[in-house]
């Protein structure tokens, strides 16, 4: 029946949501291009039906009813498609907030593994959204790093261990030589970004 494909798409969206809530490294599943295209085909088909029925509506109640049901089917498909799209865009938003607000903004391709899984409009969207976020951060709120950690700062100094070899990387507050498996006792605020990027592990 009409709308079954939409149902399938919604199940896919549900699965995406579950995946995202279970594992922290956000890897967005493939965009279901095939399914979306066939739903859109169904919509086009329904639309042709609707146009035909609309011409016939003067000639009786039966056609009016058919027209109404056709429109309902289109609406249902629209709801499914939008819900799927919105689920994905919400996840994209959170990815932008988590990763791309960091210094690595320019090299977005490398941080975002799933960029090949996105549809073309979505790639455009993620670019524009990260642009918007960086604009937000350069406004009045420049002293507050909006994409910074959302867990409250409790310790002034922490122990960190280097997970990945990165050479000399830190520049803003002085230089660290990040050698794999070395340990530092540093101020939390200095290394917060490095922890978010995955170079360091908090102990």
């Amino acid at each position, binding site marked *: 029946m009409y709308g079954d494909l939409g149902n399938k798409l919604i199940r896919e969206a549900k699965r995406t949501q579950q995946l995202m809530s279970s594992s922290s490294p956000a890897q967005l599943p493939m965009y279901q291009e095939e399914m979306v295209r066939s739903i859109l085909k169904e919509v*086009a088909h329904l639309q042709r039906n609707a146009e035909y029925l609309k011409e016939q509506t003067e000639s009786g109640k039966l056609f009016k009813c058919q027209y109404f049901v056709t429109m309902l089917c*289109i609406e249902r498909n*629209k709801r499914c498609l939008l819900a799927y799209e919105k689920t994905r865009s919400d996840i994209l938003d959170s990815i932008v907030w988590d990763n791309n607000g960091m210094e690595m903004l320019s090299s977005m391709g490398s941080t975002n593994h799933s960029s090949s899984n996105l549809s073309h409009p979505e790639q*455009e969207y993620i670019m524009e959204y990260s642009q918007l976020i960086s604009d937000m951060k350069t406004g009045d709120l420049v002293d*507050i790093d*909006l994409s910074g950690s959302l867990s409250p700062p409790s310790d002034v100094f922490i122990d960190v261990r280097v997970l990945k070899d990165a050479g000399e990387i830190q520049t803003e507050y002085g230089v660290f030589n990040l050698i794999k498996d070395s340990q530092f006792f540093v101020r939390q605020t200095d290394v917060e970004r490095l922890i978010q990027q995955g170079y360091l592990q908090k102990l």
Partner: protein
Amino acid sequence: MDLNIDDILADLDRDTTAVDSSLYLSSEHDTTRFSEANGTPSNHEKHIAVNNITPESDYQMLITHWRNERMAPELLPYPHLLIGRLLQRLTNQIEHIENLSMGFLEEAAENDAKIPMLCMEAELERLKFVIRSYIRCRLHKIDKYSLYLRQLDQANDRTLSLTELLSPQEMVYHDKHSKILLKLFNNSVLRHMPPEMQAIDDTDGSINMIDQPDWSKFVFVLIKGAEPGEEDSEQVLNDDGKPCYSVTIPDLNEEVELAVGGIYVMRYNVISGLLRDGKAILV
């Protein structure tokens, strides 16, 4: 017979602070010594707190705003003045710390205490965290209710305009984000729909596409009462002689007494009035 002389004593207390403030005008140095010598610095501070806005009271207000924002289902009005003051102080404090640390480097004194610097930095981090969390929470709500906010903006019969509700940056964010989101939907879905179905904020269909805040959400609320010394016309005494507020739950048509100092689980729309007047806070 006992004579209650509390009011006379209070009068005398006020007199000393009056001396304080007059001295304050003539010479700052003297005042501090005066108040320290008499052991009444707290009194002096209190006097200032009534007249001016102190950093402490601002911080308390920020915490209240933050808590309310995190618990309330709707977007609350943006405290423009408060955030402006806090940001100003934040910038000043950052500069101050930088200057101090420069000073340390130049003097290179051996026995300089590190504790004050550490405290100042940690405090700064905490304040920054609260503001960051507050703003991120608001942005999340703006995303969630963007269509609803848009609709509010278009309807003219509102007491609260969008400029009061949102800060300038949030306005920009709201505008731009809904624009690029709409572009995404247009490109991938809406373009292929029949013309009468292309609206994103359709309210006549089988389901309303505009998400409204859940007005009847249950929240935990602490009844704080009016500021001490202020008379409150809404406040009534209950049977035990304790001050309380009387509110009505509309769907049940039931009156409830909310005693000052009590914590209740209440529907949001019932207590939103008290919340706006600052007589209740969400916990």
